[in-house]
């Protein structure tokens, strides 16, 4: 497969999708490459967005569907960029399309295979809280809706093959190499969340009722593993008293991340409000260093959370969490730095507001593209003030959280800017 022009977009999260749509609307052929089986990225995992509490899926899924049906967008999901070589003014790109072991020309997406698969493993899309089968689509609204056999966990029992009446299972499928020539590249590889295990004092991984904000998003989500029912992971009971601990892995030199993640304060406030909406009697306390509500409507939302929903805000850093082994409740000791009072309190559930860190794929893509990263591990802008979308390499643009912590509107704005920059660059080159 060989092409002569177009734009390559690496990453199928909200920034990548938006960049692809905007560039495609200009009449340019766009190759949207996503390493996971479906596009959507982190935003597909979220429940509601702040400060309007709009449903995340309601904003994202129309864009996902549009990207998959746009005549100028070639969607290459479950694929990875292997090599990029500059050739004149173009880039020669080698993409590896991973085998799904499902014949795409026969699979209708009926899902009978997954219903009968006997193997269940933690679903990455549900942050490990729910299960999926060894043959799966990550979530019902996945785009493209192509079933994939997870080779790592498949025991080759052949049940899916026997159940699929269309005969779409093909264990002999091999990885496929796709060669493209493009004139510009947009990198939108997104972010990863901080590994909460690194803050061992909070007991994440040891205490079942210590969860991360991303896990809470999945619990709150009506299409999540609990159908939107809030429950403790240890016993499935509805928590009555929940604490949020802010800046876990952000603004923390001990873990090498001095940056503010930018979104965690609003995420915690939003999730606190959603918890209150789900269970009115719930008592929510947010332990913070500073509350940073810098966007439009953010401060009003914060005030509403305090005054209307009765969420408690206490300034102070939680030193350690101790679990009561009988009840699985969590004991927190903290100094309120506003009153100098030492507080000790027991909670049913603790939510760690984990920070935004560079995606694991950034270093790899950085090497492939020869685009440098900054000292934090995010891509480096050509000029942080006057040209924040362009990378240090001509013809390569970066959008969204690949540049640093960003919320959804900023990522979308970046993506649209990158698309226009890339299209303009292509036109200039022609």
């Amino acid at each position, binding site marked *: 497969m060989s092409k002569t022009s177009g734009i390559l977009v690496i990453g199928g999260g909200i920034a990548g999708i938006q960049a692809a749509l905007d560039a495609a609307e200009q009449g340019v052929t766009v190759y949207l490459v996503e390493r996971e089986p479906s596009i959507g990225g982190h935003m597909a995992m979220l429940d509601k967005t702040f400060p309007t509490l709009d449903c995340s899926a309601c904003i994202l899924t129309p864009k996902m569907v549009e990207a998959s049906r746009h005549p100028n967008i070639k969607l290459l999901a479950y694929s990875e960029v292997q090599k990029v070589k500059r050739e004149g003014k173009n880039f020669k790109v080698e993409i590896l399309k991973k085998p799904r072991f499902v014949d795409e020309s026969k*699979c209708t997406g009926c899902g009978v295979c997954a219903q009968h698969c006997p193997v269940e493993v933690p679903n990455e899309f*549900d942050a490990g809280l*729910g*299960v999926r089968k060894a043959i799966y689509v990550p979530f019902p609204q996945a785009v493209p809706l192509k079933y994939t056999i997870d080779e790592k966990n498949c025991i080759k029992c052949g049940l899916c093959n026997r159940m699929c009446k269309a005969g779409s299972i093909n264990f002999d499928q091999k990885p496929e190499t796709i060669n493209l020539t493009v004139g510009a590249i947009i990198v939108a590889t997104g972010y990863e969340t901080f590994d909460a295990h690194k803050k061992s004092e909070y007991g994440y991984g040891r205490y079942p009722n210590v969860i991360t904000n991303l896990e809470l998003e999945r619990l709150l989500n009506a*299409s999540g593993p609990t*159908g939107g029912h809030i429950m403790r992971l240890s016993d499935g009971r509805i928590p009555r008293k929940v604490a949020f601990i802010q800046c876990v892995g952000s603004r923390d030199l001990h873990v090498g991340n001095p940056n503010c993640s930018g979104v965690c304060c609003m995420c915690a406030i939003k999730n606190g409000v959603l918890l209150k909406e*789900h269970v009115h009697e719930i008592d929510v306390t947010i332990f913070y260093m500073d509350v940073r509500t810098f966007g439009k409507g953010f401060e009003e939302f914060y005030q509403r959370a305090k005054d209307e929903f009765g969420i408690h805000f206490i300034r102070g850093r939680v030193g350690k969490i101790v679990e009561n082994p009988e009840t699985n409740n969590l004991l927190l000791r903290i100094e309120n730095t506003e009153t100098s009072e030492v507080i000790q309190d027991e909670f049913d559930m603790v939510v760690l507001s984990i920070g935004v860190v560079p995606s694991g794929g950034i270093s790899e893509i950085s090497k492939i593209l020869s685009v440098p990263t900054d000292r934090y591990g995010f891509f480096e802008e050509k000029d942080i003030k006057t040209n924040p979308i362009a990378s240090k390499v001509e013809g390569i643009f970066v959008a969204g959280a690949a540049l640093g912590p960003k919320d959804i509107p900023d990522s979308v704005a970046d993506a649209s800017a990158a698309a226009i920059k890339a299209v303009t660059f292509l036109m200039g080159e022609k």
Partner: protein
Amino acid sequence: MRDWTTISLREELINEIRGLLKTGRYRSVSEFVSEAIRLRLEEVSRSKGPATLESNPSTLTVPPRTEHAETHPDIVVDRLEQIWLVLTRLFEDMIQKNLEVDIEAAPKLRNCRTLINFIRAHTCPGCDRDIVQYRLQDLQHSLEKIKGNLMAAALRVSETYAKKWVNILDEAERTDLQIITSSVYTFVPGLPKNLETEWVRLTLSKPIAKEKAQEIAKEFGVTTEFTDDSQLVVKGDKNSVKKAVRVLYQLQS
């Protein structure tokens, strides 16, 4: 702070709820009632049509229940899903019979499934109804095209074969085939959530002896735990888990 109010419920209902409290899922009657009300409100908001009372006050005086229900996206998509399912079955039947089928049929059917899932997810009050209507039309047109192609292929087989499927499609279009698209909640309290801990839950079609399972677990250096008679969780090193699961599965045959 929000105000609270008291509501009255019949004693029998309260007793039923109290019975549920013993399961540990709820801690109080009010907790149960709050959740029940929230879920019902969600359900009601989902079943509201695109037209609101403000925009069409006549809905108050002339309840257009049937008409309204027929045009509501949820109802339309249910109907279209039935047609999609029949077309999928027709496609599978033709593949099994080695008949010549349009090679684009499967991707087109998959695209329709995407649209069905998209429309189903787009039911909250804040959703853009225009997008839903647009995608519903898109879905209808796509299904019509697939139907046309598949029926043309069916006619090439025989008139009887084509008629049989026309009848099934008619039934799907006119009657309720009772396709239940229930959500499956996949959370299991107590299962390890850590993605780094290797575990697999295996569903067995035939029961196996616990002693035999433990023997295999020992052989592969993994642990097994029966969650019920037909499901067991295998934990341990990644490669060992996979090998043990394979052997445990083969025990059934």
